[in-house]
């Protein structure tokens, strides 16, 4: 390490960093957050000649995570390491001391057992930490400084700087300089970071809700894996278990979505009968939100039931039981609404007594409320259609048999107004109920596709003023072409295409900021087909979920059309059948 004692005594000026942050933040994605954190940490590392730097976020009701680690001038923390999920516990170790006292700390040797007889909090914790983390980040280190960054009295972030053993230990002066930085700039910069993170999270939640709204509007089943994603991204939980009620009103079946780190599973629990004071009940026997801990009566009961339940694979059974067994503390929020037992969300943590962090943030709470309304809509449609189906069969057949029975055995009764009017009344009532049951049903309509695309693009142009979006028609007649579709189907298709395009252009702009994003949508009519060619000037990028293309293909198939993707240059062709005049 190259040590410059003079510089280490100066106060840190972050003026130029603060000027650059808004420019870095323009992307509004996780990569912007990474870049800002890297610059902050690099500034501090250089100033106090540290070898390793770390930034930890610990907002209540949000993700508790190590967001950035730099070692020897290089980013050390990688996305796939997943350290934030179950290894970092802000209530323990030296960070725990900082969090509980609200003051920064200087430790000359983190591996030294204190003479006073007080236990070394790091050594108490080291055995539970990730081996790689201890090996790379802790083992070579002797002295550290940990700074709290506060919002009012709440510590929502800590910054930790370390020097290798053999180097000069941090001085009190170093700590004072860093304290001064933390006081002057810490909250400002970290608030900015949290703001961008929240914006990214809000975008995710908004996309999930929109997607769900479209599925419900198209009478398609909700994608429950997507629906639970915001709970995994916007909470401090590292285990999320969501029960969704499924089947008819009288069934006791649930869809369990179990998420633990990188893996999410959807497990159908049929005949999963609820206990007397179950959280799955909506009878006032439980007061929400419920807090609980490791293998309490509730979790033990769940494990016991799932262990014996028929109809689940052993692999799924073990996964669900392991998730429940790993939970050390949890908070349950209901999805129940208007007397409907729609399900519950269990936010769990591998950390004991972690309740204050597990309670939902106001935004996640709003998401949950909207999810509840969507689920209720879905249930209402299900019940209504069930209603219609039962009127169809056995309702009409039953009535038909009754009429036939009277006609055969006592035909004179049909001439009696009391009987004939009653039968007519029943027939009328059944027909009315049958039709009402079909009321909330998806219908396609004739859509002028060119007008539709133009109306879809207009708000996008406002949202992405930096892009050039061109709609090109083969000839004037093309604008008159109509197709049979619904708004939701077209939105699903074009929203997916547009998201991919934004990613492709951003990937290119990260390499070359001078590039102006351009999207060309060419529309032409070929015989009885409308061809839409969607092309941008982006480059290939890392696939996010892999769900987009199957969704586009599925919708195109439902519309009787098809989709073709060409790789060089990358472009998508959509073929819609024209509607008959």
């Amino acid at each position: 390490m190259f040590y410059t004692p003079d510089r280490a005594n100066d106060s840190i000026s972050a003026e130029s960093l603060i000027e650059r942050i808004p420019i870095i933040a323009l992307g509004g994605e996780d990569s912007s957050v990474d870049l800002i954190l890297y610059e902050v940490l690099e500034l501090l590392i250089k100033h106090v000649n540290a070898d390793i730097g770390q930034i930890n976020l610990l907002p209540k009701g949000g993700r508790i995570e190590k967001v950035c680690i730099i070692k020897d001038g290089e980013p050390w923390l990688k996305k796939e390491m997943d350290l934030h999920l179950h290894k970092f516990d802000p209530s323990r170790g030296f960070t725990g001391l900082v969090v509980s006292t609200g003051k920064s700390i200087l430790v000359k040797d983190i591996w030294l057992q204190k003479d006073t007889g007080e236990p070394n909090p790091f050594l108490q914790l080291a055995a539970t930490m990730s081996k790689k983390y201890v090996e790379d980040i802790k083992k070579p280190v002797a002295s550290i400084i940990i700074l709290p960054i506060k919002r009012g009295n709440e510590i929502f972030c800590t910054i930790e700087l370390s020097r290798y053993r053999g180097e000069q230990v941090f001085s009190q002066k170093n700590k004072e300089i860093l304290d001064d930085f933390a006081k002057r700039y810490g909250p400002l910069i970290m608030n900015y970071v949290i703001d961008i993170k929240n914006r990214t999270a809000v975008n995710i939640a908004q996309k999930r809700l929109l997607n769900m709204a479209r599925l419900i509007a198209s009478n398609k089943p909700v994608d429950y894996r997507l629906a639970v994603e915001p709970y995994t991204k916007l909470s401090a939980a590292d285990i999320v278990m969501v029960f969704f009620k499924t089947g008819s009103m009288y069934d006791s079946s649930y869809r369990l979505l179990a998420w633990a780190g990188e893996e999410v599973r959807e497990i159908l629990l049929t005949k999963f009968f609820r206990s007397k004071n179950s959280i799955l009940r909506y009878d006032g026997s439980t007061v929400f939100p419920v807090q609980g801990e490791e293998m309490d009566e509730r979790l033990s009961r769940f494990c016991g039931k799932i262990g014996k339940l028929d109809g689940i694979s052993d692999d799924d059974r073990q996964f669900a039981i392991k998730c429940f067994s790993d939970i050390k503390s949890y908070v349950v929020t209901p999805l129940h609404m208007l007397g409907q037992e729609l399900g519950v969300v269990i936010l769990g943590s591998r950390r004991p007594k972690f309740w204050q962090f597990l309670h939902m943030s106001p935004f996640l709470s709003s998401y949950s409320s909207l999810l509840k309304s969507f689920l209720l809509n879905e249930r209402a449609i299900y019940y209504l259609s069930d209603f219609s189906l039962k009127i169809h069969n056995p309702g009409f057949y039953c009535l038909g048999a009754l009429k036939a029975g009277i006609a055969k055995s006592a035909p004179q009764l049909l001439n009696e107004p009391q009987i004939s009017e009653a039968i007519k009344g029943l027939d009328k009532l059944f027909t009315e109920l049958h039709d009402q049951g079909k009321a909330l049903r998806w219908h396609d309509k004739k859509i002028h596709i060119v007008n539709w695309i133009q109306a879809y693009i207009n708000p996008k142009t406002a949202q992405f003023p930096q892009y050039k979006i061109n709609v090109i028609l083969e000839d004037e007649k093309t604008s008159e072409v109509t197709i049979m579709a619904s708004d939701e189907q077209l939105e699903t298709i074009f929203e997916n295409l547009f998201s991919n395009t934004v990613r492709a252009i951003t990937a290119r702009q990260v390499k070359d900021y001078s590039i102006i994003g351009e999207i060309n949508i060419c529309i032409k009519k070929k015989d009885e087909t409308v061809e839409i060619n969607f092309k941008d000037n982006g480059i290939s990028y890392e696939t996010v979920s892999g769900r987009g293309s199957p969704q586009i293909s599925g919708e195109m198939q439902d519309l009787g059309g098809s989709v073709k993707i060409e790789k060089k240059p990358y472009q998508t062709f959509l073929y819609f059948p024209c509607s008959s005049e």
Partner: protein
Amino acid sequence: MKAKVLFFDDIFSDLFRNKFPADQLAWDDNWVSSLTEAFKMAESSTGVSFEIVNCGEIDSWNEVIDKEKPDIILLDLFWPEQAVEKYGDRLRATDVSLEVLPKIREAFPALPVICHTAKPDRELMEKAYEKGATFFVEKVSMSLAEVQVPFVYIVINLLR
């Protein structure tokens, strides 16, 4: 004259019959009996002898038609349990039959297909004709052979 009628209806499928209790299936069976009886009743007056083949396996339409070689098909349009199995969505009950109909029409262009369902609507009628129905008629739910007989005369008309 002899004629074979292949009757595709969800009420003959195992999926349907395994789901509902016997007392409910009785209403459907009564209705099928009344229709079968109507065909028999019409034999003496029309001189056409009908053989009725009931089938609930709509996905095996090709094999069944190849095997039975019917002169006419009666196709019920409403298949809710099959829609749950196929699309995970009961609301798409008519999509099951409307998806098969054009395939039948393409494979057997000359084979008459009568589509029927209880309480249909205009949209469904239009779609059925668009996808290849020869005739579209409302299913009369009254399980009385005398009431079903006129349906037999539609069949005869299409067989001529």
